């Protein structure tokens, strides 16, 4: 294995894992996503290493694997079942990093369709610009703006009034 690839993968796999986890809400599947993305990256490493922004290249690979992954339905059903097994009255989560808050956030993200969810994660977790997000997902900047706007409104509704500042960004 190319030493540069190994070094890059070791350095970035945890961050890719967190992004993948936000995308899919499932640890095992997040691991699969990272693994698939890294395999794809290794395969095209000779040209990928020449990319201006290798981090963006790898991140985009994870997102695209997620969007194209076909076995998600079964696992989504599993995570939905888990989410629905939690108390449903606590929709307005508190600000402390409790398991309930974590689950509520993940549950809210999962209410978004895959592509808008990916947009939100790239924009607000990876802090990409609208232009960078559009490039990563192969869509127009206008599409990113409108989808993110709608997703923010939906998240506000799902997460409750304590997070109204979300839509102020």
């Amino acid at each position, binding site marked *: *294995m190319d030493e540069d690839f*190994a070094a890059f*993968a*070791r350095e970035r*796999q*945890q961050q890719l*894992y*967190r992004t993948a*986890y*936000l995308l899919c809400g499932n*640890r095992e599947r*997040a*691991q699969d996503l*990272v*693994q*698939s*993305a*890294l*395999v*794809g990256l*290794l*395969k*095209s490493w000779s*040209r*990928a290493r*020449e*990319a201006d922004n290798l981090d963006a*290249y790898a991140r985009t*690979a994870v997102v*695209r*694997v997620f969007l*194209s992954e*076909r*076995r998600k339905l*079964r696992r989504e059903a599993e995570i939905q079942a888990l989410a629905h097994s939690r108390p449903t009255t606590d929709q307005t989560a508190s*600000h402390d*990093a409790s*398991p309930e*808050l*974590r689950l509520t*956030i*993940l549950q809210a*993200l999962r209410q978004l369709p895959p592509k808008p969810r990916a947009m*939100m*994660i790239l924009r*607000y*977790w990876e*802090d990409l610009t609208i232009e960078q997000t559009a490039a990563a997902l192969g869509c127009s900047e206008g599409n990113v703006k409108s989808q993110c706007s709608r997703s*923010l409104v939906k*998240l506000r509704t799902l*997460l409750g009034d304590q*997070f109204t*500042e*979300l839509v102020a*960004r």
Partner: protein
Amino acid sequence: MDLHELMSTAVADLPELPDQLAEVDRIHHRRTATKRAVLISASTALVLGVGTLTIASPWERPQSAGAAVASSPLSKQQFAENAAQILQGIWPVQSARVVWVRQTSDPGNTSQYTLFKLEEGSNTWQLHIILYGSSATTPYPLVTTLPSDCAVAPTDCVANADGTIRAYAPGSGMSLVYVSTGNYPLYSISADGFPIILATPSLVNTLNLSSSVTEPTPLTSDQLKQLALSDGMQQIYAEGAQAGLLAEGIYSTATPIPSTNP
């Protein structure tokens, strides 16, 4: 608390991911070690396409000397059945199952003989083989490349207006197959959105060789080898040509491919 902080909270207690390098290396080697269904193609060769791509017109033509076509005729149905078996044998994922999509409702539709279904576990893809011969109308032919295990795309794969085709690699994200026409060195092949190479000398040589004045002529065995087609794919090409399944061009819902030539 802004959205970034919220998301940070969601991953705060995420356990560390075990080092993936060993597994990534193992998967990578397994894929590359299996017989490669190399699918480098041109309008002088063979293209695996999918989805919205259709054969514009079937092309049947007497074979020329040296063409990679056997002498005895082969029925289209026999070609399809053989091709499914060959694809099954050379597919990089050994658990995959390749079947010919038989369409009894439309027996006159020749494209049905080049349409296959690939099943990998719960995943199913449509696999459409398009066979090209050299052509006077495409003296500078379509150039495209599909990496060995990027040759399968879901049925929603589309050809873009600029002549690019997006294909999805099973398990490894999306690859971009760039289609270009024009004089060398304008041929370019891209993957994953990054321009990578100009046409290799052998491919350029093949393109030059194929700039014939006659209409679609099956490629010779040497030309197929120059295009780095695997033995199995060469056999599929030869049998497809023999069965009269060479096509002069392909069209998508977006734009004709290949575009006009210089």
